[in-house]
């Protein structure tokens, strides 16, 4: 649906800073999240987790647990043996593992009791007989494991999936490049840590139907998985998503408490609620995988990027999950933000005995983008170019298709870059080392800035980087012909006017009851999807926002939407909502055109009224009444959205991931200082410009952009899933995992760039993920500007910084920057610089040594 010139009425709503329609429920404490629910007779479940990383389960004896007063039942793998997984090719896990535990924290059994305390007390009474198996925690070592160390029999060498993509002739292009950079980057795993721990309440109804309330981002996928594992038809299951306290991808798969609660409720004959502890949330994970990236980029002397080659290994943990999709994203968007004619990408998704990874904000793209944007900084230095200028010389020229077949129509990246370059004072305030200036003098103190008054050991620097993301996946994971989103907009016959009340002719006031209801399957998880659809429908029907009620995510009454992931909702459900509102408007206009004897196209909805071409006017409610067919109680407008064929990408193996109807863009400048005595990196400010097509609600867009930047900042500076040598997660708590507090969080200034996508609703694209990736390389590049050290592994903690500074001091003054940040304690150490070029397609990557 094309963006259109806005009417005044639409302009009052579209683009106006708008409080979320559900804000009062959040700020008053009245809104119900899943764990806030209680139903009569409700029992509580607690899951027993494996304490071994890899073991065959020989038996489970729950006798002592069952004997504890208040315990109702214990369920095990045998109670839910059907394997599932979010991808059709990855149905490799069970809600409770029947025969094998594959990581510390894997799900073995569930106690159902009258209280959570009793259930927790019963857990240690369950006796599980394990037979330990060899366990692997390093992906390169796992790829060399003997068969006894394969996590899944059907995945030899623990390789879940591998892909090899070649576009153009990257080898020839690199051979003629004026400058080529090669590096190995290591990004440890990070996790979502949404503030609301996962929770589910499951209840069987007297008629045998099942109702499940769950903190899910994807009610539809949950619905399908419940039907599969419980062997019920989808019609017999009702999935309701209450308010959700954040997702970031962590609630986009079955986790598996939803299924465990349902199976337990069936066994116990009573409703069962399960709420994870914070520690369980960490073990559930499904976050961003550890990624090893060997990257090579070559450019001509004028800065034109000629080719990029990448070899990516992702440590997916114990189960498939979204794994192949995550992996493909790391390649599909690698060469798609700039005009790069030659791309080669080899990707491996590997299974290890650690919590399974999955989708996390910026799904699959973040770690590759870090590597690429950090490498561009080095390339700019080699070529004597300003890093911002190097990027400018490689912009796409839309409308176009990237070399791997992604269609790009709107492209606000140039404006994003100019915006942050201007706002940050980039030209004047950067040290300018890379712009042809002599390289770092090896005086042990790094480059100096003339305009700096701070202590000599604390050096400021600026770094720039860019990123982008999809506005939803053009191809659904399960069915090629799926309708991605359906929305209904319903208007009921007006109730009789109360005595003395006015009716007809008057505009709806804010105090008026809702005039229309939006029925949508979308999952509001804090990103503002309910508000977005209310705005679009209000604008399209000329109604005030308060006249629109949103009813969402109850499978018994709302139509199907694929869910809140890959930033798809504004683009897809927004278009469906717009089409539904226009369908309703056409029904009203058709009826009034007969009455008014005019062209239906000449009828407008404005200011709570429906207006004819010759001064005719009816209140919206009266117009609905006039348009109702005899005997009908309400009008229903229906809108659907599926991405157009042209946006669905190429037809090579793995081409399904990456295509999107539209892409967002972000450019950022980070200002940091590095304390060379302590190694502490301080981020003073981030300037972040984001092309969201059109900001339907600028408060929400700024909130999403700042929130994304901040989450990337956590990955850059402090966050990391740390594992012990025995595969135990070492930091399963918010403090130990080091989520930044308000005191750790620098100011982030968001700038909105509006490129008006021709297919987005009112021109809108995604805003919730695309800004995350750029901040990590922007900080890395700023650290280089400040201290002359290149860091290849986030988080950029004081110990890593100090090691790099020491290496810089020890390095011969070769004119080359120190590249000693490649400490890789958690993984196989890589070569300090200049790793070998990626191995040939199809060849197994080097095994861990």
């Amino acid at each position, binding site marked *: 649906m094309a963006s259109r010139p806005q009417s005044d009425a639409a302009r009052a709503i579209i683009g106006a800073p708008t409080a979320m329609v559900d804000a009062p429920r959040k700020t008053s404490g009245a809104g119900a999240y899943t764990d806030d629910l209680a139903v009569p007779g409700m029992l509580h479940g607690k899951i027993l987790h494996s304490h071994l990383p890899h073991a065959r389960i020989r038996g489970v004896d729950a006798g002592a647990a069952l004997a504890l007063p208040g315990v109702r039942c214990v369920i095990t793998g045998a109670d839910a043996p059907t394997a599932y997984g979010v991808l059709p090719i990855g149905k490799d896990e069970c809600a409770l593992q029947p025969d094998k535990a594959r990581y510390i924290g894997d799900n073995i059994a569930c106690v159902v009791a009258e209280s959570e305390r009793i259930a927790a007390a019963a857990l240690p009474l369950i006796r599980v007989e394990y037979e330990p198996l060899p366990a692997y925690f390093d992906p390169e070592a796992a790829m060399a494991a003997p068969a006894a160390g394969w996590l899944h029999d059907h995945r030899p060498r623990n390789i879940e999936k591998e892909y090899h993509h070649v576009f153009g002739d990257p080898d020839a292009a690199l051979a003629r490049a004026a400058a080529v950079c090669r590096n190995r980057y290591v990004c440890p795993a990070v996790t979502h840590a949404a503030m609301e721990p996962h929770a589910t309440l499951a209840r069987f109804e007297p008629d045998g139907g099942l109702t499940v309330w769950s903190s899910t981002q994807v009610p539809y996928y949950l619905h399908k998985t419940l039907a599969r594992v419980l062997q019920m038809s989808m019609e017999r299951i009702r999935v309701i998503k209450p308010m959700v306290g954040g997702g970031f991808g962590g609630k986009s798969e079955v986790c598996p408490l939803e299924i465990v609660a349902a199976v337990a409720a069936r066994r116990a004959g009573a409703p069962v609620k399960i709420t994870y502890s914070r520690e369980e949330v960490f073990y559930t994970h499904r976050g961003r995988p550890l990624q090893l990236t060997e990257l090579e980029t070559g450019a001509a002397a004028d800065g034109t990027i000629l080719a990029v080659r990448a070899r990516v290994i992702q440590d997916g943990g114990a189960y498939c999950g979204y794994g192949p999709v995550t992996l493909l994203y790391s390649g599909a968007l690698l060469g798609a933000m700039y005009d790069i004619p030659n791309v080669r990408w080899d990707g491996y998704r590997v299974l290890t005995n650690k919590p399974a990874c999955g989708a996390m904000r910026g799904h699959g793209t973040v770690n590759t983008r870090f590597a690429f944007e950090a490498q561009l900084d080095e390339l700019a230095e080699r070529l004597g170019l300003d890093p911002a200028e190097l990027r400018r010389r490689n912009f796409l020229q839309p409308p176009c298709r990237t070399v791997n077949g992604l269609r790009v129509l709107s492209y606000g990246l140039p404006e994003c870059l100019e915006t942050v370059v201007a706002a940050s004072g980039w030209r004047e305030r950067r040290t300018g080392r890379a712009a042809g200036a002599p390289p770092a003098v090896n005086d042990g103190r790094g480059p100096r800035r003339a305009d700096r008054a701070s202590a000599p050991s604390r050096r400021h620097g600026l770094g720039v980087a860019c990123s982008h993301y999809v506005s939803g996946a053009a191809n659904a994971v399960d069915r090629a012909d799926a309708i991605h989103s359906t929305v209904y907009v319903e208007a009921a016959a007006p109730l009789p006017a109360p005595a003395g009340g006015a009716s007809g002719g008057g505009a709806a006031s804010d105090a008026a009851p809702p005039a229309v209801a939006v029925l949508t399957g979308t999952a509001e998880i804090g990103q503002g999807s309910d508000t977005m659809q209310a705005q679009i429908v209000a604008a399209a029907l000329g109604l005030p926002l308060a006249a629109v009620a949103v009813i969402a995510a109850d499978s018994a009454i709302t139509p199907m939407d694929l869910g809140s992931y890959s930033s798809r909702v504004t683009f897809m459900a927004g278009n469906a909502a717009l089409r539904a509102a226009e369908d309703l408007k056409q029904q009203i206009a058709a009826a009034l055109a007969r009455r008014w004897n005019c062209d239906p196209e000449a009828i407008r909805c404005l200011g709570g009224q429906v207006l004819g071409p010759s001064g005719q006017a009816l209140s919206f409610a009266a117009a609905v009444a006039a348009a109702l067919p005899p005997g009908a109680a309400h009008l229903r407008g229906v809108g659907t959205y599926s991405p157009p064929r042209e946006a669905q990408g190429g037809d090579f193996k793995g081409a399904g991931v990456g295509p999107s109807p539209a892409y967002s863009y972000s450019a950022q400048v980070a200002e940091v200082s590095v304390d060379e005595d302590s190694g502490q990196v301080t981020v003073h400010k981030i300037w972040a410009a984001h092309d969201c097509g059109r900001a339907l609600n600028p408060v929400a867009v700024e*909130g999403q952009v700042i929130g994304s930047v901040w989450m990337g900042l956590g990955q850059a500076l402090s966050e990391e899933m740390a594992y012990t040598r025995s595969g135990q997660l070492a930091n399963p708590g918010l403090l130990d995992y080091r989520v930044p507090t*308000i005191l750790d969080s620098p100011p982030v200034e968001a700038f909105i760039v509006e490129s008006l996508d021709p297919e987005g609703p009112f021109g809108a694209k995604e805003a919730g993920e695309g800004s995350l990736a750029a901040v990590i390389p922007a900080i890395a590049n700023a650290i280089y500007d400040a201290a002359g050290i290149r860091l290849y592994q986030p988080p950029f903690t004081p110990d890593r910084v100090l090691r790099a500074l020491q290496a810089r001091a020890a390095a011969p003054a070769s004119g080359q920057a120190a590249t000693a940040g490649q400490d890789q304690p958690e993984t196989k150490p890589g070569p300090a610089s200049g790793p070998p070029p990626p191995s040939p397609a199809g060849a197994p990557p080097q095994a861990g040594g």
Partner: protein
Amino acid sequence: MITAFTVNGQPRRLELDPATLLLEALREHLRLTGTKCGCDDSSCGACTVLVNGQPALACTLLAAGCDGADITTIEGIATDGRLTALQRAFGRMGGAQCGFCTPGMVMAAKALLDGNPDPSDGEIQAALSGNICRCTGYVQILASVRAALAEAAGAAADAARPKAAADAQRRAAGPTPPPQAAEPQSAHG
């Protein structure tokens, strides 16, 4: 054992197991579910309530230890059904995305403002430093508290610009000189 305290102005007497936490007493026994549980080890602040006017973490207090106390939860601060300036500002300024940290944030901020009607940004940040938000990056939360203060100071119109968030943070940033460049396009320009 019997525990008696005042919750949101109402006297309550509860028969509780001595191990019951204040959070359980509120959420499960009194069904006041506005107070949230984000961890259980005092690391997130989602369970912040006021005990005798002071902010406290309900997940780590025994209910019995609050015998005789005056407890205020998020449900108890609106007056005559009208949300407080702080609550409204969190809604208007984007301070509540998913809303899960919001009750704790609002209570921590209320505790600050009750004792200090004119806090600096640094004081606001210090008061909220035990409350983790995973959605907002805190910028719009700081702006929300600032907006509530501005409303109290009668300057509501000025504070209603979400850009105030960035401005407030810039002030808080201290040593960084503001860039000289012209303000680029923004949705609020």
